[in-house]
């Protein structure tokens, strides 16, 4: 009994202290709410991501502060989509909070009403005190998680396609980071030295996974996935892009590229076996961690090069957090979402190598000091010219990615010499059929 009293007293003191420190006036309604939510356990289904890695060890702080217990489990991205779809279809899922990919799942999940609409939460000052600073989120990021005027997730991470390169190898060869795709190819050719175990370039080659990292190559050639509700992956520009991607990976890429998603490509780059890697900027931490990377001190990053149609890397919100519409503990879930995307936590995530969605963080002194050289510049410059999607944005995106990805695989297998135009035409027919079926 005495012990309980004591714990209660400490808790109350902590709440008061927190209220005083943050200077928030809402301490009166907040205290009973904290008690009400204390003791609840929420289930958080996450993706295997550097953001998750960064916040995992911080969760006990949240639990201590609110009394809410968090049960976290994490999956690789495609498995996560599958897991979520399977569970949410049942209509009786026990998931409270989950990480979601707006471009991949946004439409499908919205259509099935699996997201709890969050607009009422962020606008309600009782649920969301002003000091959480919803307005500080990047506008483009918020747009990315809003569909038909409804906010369905809080964006946490942004990423863009970037070029990782080996500073030492470039210096040895007297090369500068390529600014154009022609230079990229030339550098890949020059640095490709399989006899000594170094390949010129790697990028994703696995069927569905390849599509997103191919997208910046596509835009640089003047191509696109969809236009006016139709798939346009068979235009001459798009075909050229597919041929180019296939050629560089076939001629100067490591063996086995057609089975590679980012973990495999990252492993190769980290083990010093490739000179360049084009992929999402968020994968940088894995290259800089001396425990995982042999070349941690030799990694440079540069903007994604331009092509005949200019420089158009994608910049997207790959991950956001949502509350399940089926959750029975939405209040506790919202507390967790708020905490997960609070400035304090986000800053820690950013310091651990993530690229996050709050403006304040990008101006934070600690963050700027710790950013990888060139990162802030690349982020700023890319943001100004970026394309806001990296895949065909549609409901049946998984199948569409497979159809387009297969053309990319064939191109890599043949070094771009297969009948890409014909294959692309077939893919267009498939994608258009999918669009028609889902009424898009």
């Amino acid at each position, binding site marked *: 009994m005495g012990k309980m009293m004591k714990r209660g007293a400490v808790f109350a003191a902590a709440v008061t202290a927190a209220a005083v420190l943050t200077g928030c006036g809402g301490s009166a309604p907040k205290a009973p709410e904290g008690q009400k939510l204390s003791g609840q356990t929420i289930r958080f289904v996450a993706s295997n991501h550097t953001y998750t890695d960064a916040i995992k060890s911080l969760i006990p702080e949240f639990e201590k502060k609110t009394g809410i217990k968090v049960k976290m489990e994490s999956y*690789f991205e495609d*498995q996560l989509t599958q897991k979520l779809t*399977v569970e949410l279809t*049942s209509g009786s899922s026990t998931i409270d909070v989950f990480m979601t990919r707006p471009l991949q799942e946004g439409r499908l999940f919205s259509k099935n009403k699996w997201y709890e609409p969050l607009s009422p939460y962020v606008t309600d000052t009782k649920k969301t005190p002003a000091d959480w600073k919803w307005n500080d989120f990047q506008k483009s990021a918020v747009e990315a998680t809003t569909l038909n005027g409804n906010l369905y997730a809080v964006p946490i991470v942004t990423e863009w396609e970037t070029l990782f390169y080996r500073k030492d190898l470039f210096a040895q060869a007297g090369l500068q980071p390529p600014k154009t795709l022609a230079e990229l190819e030339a550098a890949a050719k020059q640095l490709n030295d399989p006899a000594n175990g170094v390949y010129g370039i790697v990028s994703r080659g696995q069927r569905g996974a390849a599509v997103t990292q191919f997208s910046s190559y596509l835009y640089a050639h003047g191509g696109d996935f969809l236009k006016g509700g139709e798939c346009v992956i068979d235009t001459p520009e798009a075909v050229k892009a597919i041929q180019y991607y296939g050629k560089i990976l076939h001629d100067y890429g490591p063996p086995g590229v057609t089975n590679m998603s980012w*973990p*495999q490509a990252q492993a190769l780059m980290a083990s010093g076996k490739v000179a360049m890697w084009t992929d999402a900027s968020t994968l940088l931490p894995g290259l800089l961690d001396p425990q*995982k990377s042999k070349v941690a001190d030799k990694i440079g990053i540069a903007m994604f090069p331009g092509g005949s149609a200019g420089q158009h890397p994608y910049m997207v919100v790959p991950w956001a957090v949502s509350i399940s519409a089926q959750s029975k503990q939405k209040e506790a879930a919202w507390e967790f979402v708020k905490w997960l995307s609070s400035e304090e936590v986000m800053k820690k995530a950013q310091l651990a190598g993530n690229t996050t969605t709050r403006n304040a963080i990008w101006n934070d002194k600690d963050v700027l000091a710790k950013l990888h050289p060139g990162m802030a510049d690349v982020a700023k410059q890319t943001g100004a010219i970026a394309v806001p999607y990296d895949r065909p944005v549609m409901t049946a995106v998984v199948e569409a990615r497979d159809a387009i990805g297969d053309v990319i695989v064939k191109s890599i297998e043949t070094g771009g010499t297969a009948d890409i135009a014909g294959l692309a035409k077939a893919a267009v027919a498939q994608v258009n059929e999918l669009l028609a079926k889902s009424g898009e």
Partner: protein
Amino acid sequence: MKQKKHMDYLWYGLVLLVAIPFIFPLAWIVLASFKTQAQIVTTPPLWVFTPTLENYQSVFVDQQFGKFLWNSSVIAVGSTLLSLIIGLPAAYTISRYKQKVLGVFILLARLMPGIAYLIPWFILFTKLGMVDTYTALIASHMLVGLPFIVWIMVNYFDGLPHELVEAAQVDGCTLQSAFLKIVLPLSVPGILTASTLSFLFSWNNFMFSLVLSSDRTKTLPIAIYNFVSYAEVSWGSVMAAAVVIILPAIVLTMAFQRYVIKGLTAGAVKG
């Protein structure tokens, strides 16, 4: 005589040549599970190295394989026991009364590709709110175990003399108590064969758990698959996890070797 000895050596060499390819990959998994990442990616491969327990620590502490070990055990034991309870009586009457239709029906279940059930099960179990429960997983694994048990036991009961049961009936035993008191005790070797195999099928099952299990009931095959697709880089932990999964299966197989061989080759030789 001398020549025969030479032939013997030659022949033993041949046996070695046969056995090594089958044991080598497994031995390699065990070796790799004690290596650091750097040691694993080294070419040519290292044969001598300072072993590390780090991988096992990561498997049990970070990945909490203890829990999955428990889940897998519950589901494998549960599905085997239940399959025995409903399978043994069925096998007995199928054998005794030549219930051919039923026999063929159960054989059909043995032939059927498991993936054919996935969609309806998924829909059924979600409607019942039973996804991610032991019940759903045990029931699904039983569909592999039960036909197998019946299949083996029908063959086994066929070989038992009916006279024993008839004699017991003359002594006033009912058929069912004769089954319990006479037939089953005589069938222990067959039951061991059938249940070992049923346990192994469940232990190794991946497809059903992939769709029907989640956080609460995640089994070992799913657990290793889940952490692999992410931690692709950490081969050492993957190999340690593989050892954790494979070892119980191997120990069980070694303990019941005779029965496992009988089970796997069942029905093949009789023709």
